[in-house]
């Protein structure tokens, strides 16, 4: 995946560049709007991460000019929690937005969604190592043993299984599993993950759910 990051704040630009590169993406960084627009028009990117507040040319202007030429997916970053601001961005042709401060895992998840071409076909059978998930029958078998899960535990496992190797943030999990789209002050997600682990990981040698400290959880056959 080819990503352009347009961000004037030096620290933010650096960590976005490093973080995304470490995940194996090819990343270009533009330090202001003019350069960002120039690069965006020169090179075909898969997705553009665009900061709104920038000197010389702000993100809105970059987006306006970009949309005349290309329809590269754009995710904009804003520090303002205004509904008007968000609507403006989406009206100008942005595809998604994140409000600062945001979690890095959240950004990565959104970028993946934006670059996924076409609706992904819902798989009916999932197989991860010795774990088998029958999505339709909601049946989970690990190493030949049938595991009984509650509805929410199944939803959580399904979310993990369909996002293998990705770090999922707590807020993303809360939003996908319970439809709670806000950061609550509780550790509901941690508790739910712990209970799921109790059933699908603890009795077995190979652990599938890994905590990523400070970020969230990762479902992976690799430790």
């Amino acid at each position, binding site marked *: 995946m080819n990503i352009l990051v347009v961000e004037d704040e030096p620290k933010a630009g650096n960590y976005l560049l490093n973080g995304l590169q470490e995940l194996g993406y090819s990343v270009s960084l533009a330090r202001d709007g003019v350069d960002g627009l120039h690069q965006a028009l020169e090179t075909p990117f898969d997705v553009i991460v665009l900061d709104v507040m920038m000197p010389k040319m702000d993100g809105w202007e970059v987006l306006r000019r970009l949309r005349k030429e290309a329809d590269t997916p754009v995710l904009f970053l804003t520090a303002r929690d205004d509904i008007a601001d968000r609507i403006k961005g989406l009206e100008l042709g942005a595809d998604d937005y994140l409000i600062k*401060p945001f979690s890095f895992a959240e950004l990565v998840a959104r970028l993946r969604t934006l670059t996924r071409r076409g609706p992904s076909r819902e798989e009916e059978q999932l197989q991860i190592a010795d774990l088998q998930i029958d999505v339709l029958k909601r049946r989970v078998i690990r190493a030949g043993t049938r595991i009984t899960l509650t509805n929410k535990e199944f939803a959580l496992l399904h979310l993990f299984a369909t996002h293998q190797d990705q770090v999922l943030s707590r807020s993303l999990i809360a939003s996908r599993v*319970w439809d709670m789209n806000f950061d609550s002050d509780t550790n*509901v997600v941690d508790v739910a993950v712990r209970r799921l682990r109790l059933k699908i990981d603890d009795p077995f040698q190979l652990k599938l759910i890994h905590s990523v400290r400070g970020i969230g959880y990762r479902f992976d056959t690799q430790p």
Partner: protein
Amino acid sequence: MSNRRHYSLTLRLALIFALLAFALLATLGVALYRELERELIKRDDAALIYRADQLRNLLNDSNTLDLIKTKPELFQNMLGNSESVLSIAAPGQKPLLLVNPGNIEMPAVSPVPKDHALGFADVHHLPGINGVPFATIAASIDSGDLGSLQVTTGRLMTERTAMLASYRLSVFFLASIAAVILAVVSYLLVHRGLVPLRRLAAHTQGIGVGNLAERLDSHGTPKELLPMIDSFNTMLERLAKGFVQLGQVSTDMAHELRTPINNLLGETQVALQQQRSVESYQQLLASNVEELERLARMLDNMLFLARTDPASALRQRQELSAADEVERIADYFEGLASDVDMRIQAEGEGVIWAEPMLLRRALANLCANAIKYGAPRSELVIQAIPNAEGIHLRVSNHGETIAAEHLLRLFERFYRVDESRERSAQSNGLGLSIVATIMQLHNGRYSVSSEAGVTCFELFFPRRED
């Protein structure tokens, strides 16, 4: 605001007074004029009747008739002015005597019979010449040898007309002067009467953030301004209170930020004191992330509370199934509750008219508290009870009874029942104030009761208006 011009109250009142004065005086003048006119006509008519009567008596005497024939000039002098007319004639003949110095055209008038006394009704009023009215009376007399004669006398009312005209002019003139005087006087009076208002305006201008405690002085102001002054002072009261609260919230927030920032700073500085293993650096960073997330959440909550745009929340309201919503919340907290051996019992029916995210946030905040403060191995009850006006949502738990003095203040920002115990990473003291804000956004109500070990929070969402 539109560009509509503001009218002057003073000018408007002055004009109204002037118009009223003019109208009243003119009406009075016209009424008096009519009375005067009637009196004058009556007097003139009486004079005519008197003259005709006299002539009648006089002419009954044959000597007088002779006198007319021989010395008509005597009669001419008798009338005395050019506006009077007198004719004595036998019917259908040339008049025996005609005094008409003004050459006024004499209309034919039917005479009053001999045996009839003359009255006002017998006077004929005619339009006369050039609009000047002409009054005339005719009477028959028996003059013996000359047979029946007709005496006609009349008068052109020039004098009366002129007098009335000048009277009319005076009335108009006086009414106008009175109107002008009243306009000026009322302008000055109203201007003077509004002095307290200008004083209030000047005083109000002087009230700013620095002296919100100041109040408008109602001393010496008219009674009519008192309600305005009172409500303005009440408004100042509220503003001052709000301002103090706002200041308090900012202070509280700054203090609240100190804890996570202190942790971040201290932990990081200690970690940098000497070389450490990768493991401990990772631990530090993870701990930093926790603190930062806490800061971010607090920021998020503060912004949520500061957002004062009820319209957008209200626009996004939906009819939500109460059963689904309480079920969802119960599902969400199931794990957390069973960690402390609490059971969640969710039940309810009906429809909640609310913005889904805000509703869930409010319920989640209540449930998080209920689990945090609920007694282990007790039951957390979430209920939805619909009625005609809307729906009540109840979250109740068993636990320590909250003292009445705390109950009222629970919904205040950063208010904590027990300062030392509850300042933890999981609580930032804003949860219930967010619930309160959400309920206010929905024009709903919220309340809390705590009795005999059961604490119950109740939210009321009004039903959708048709």
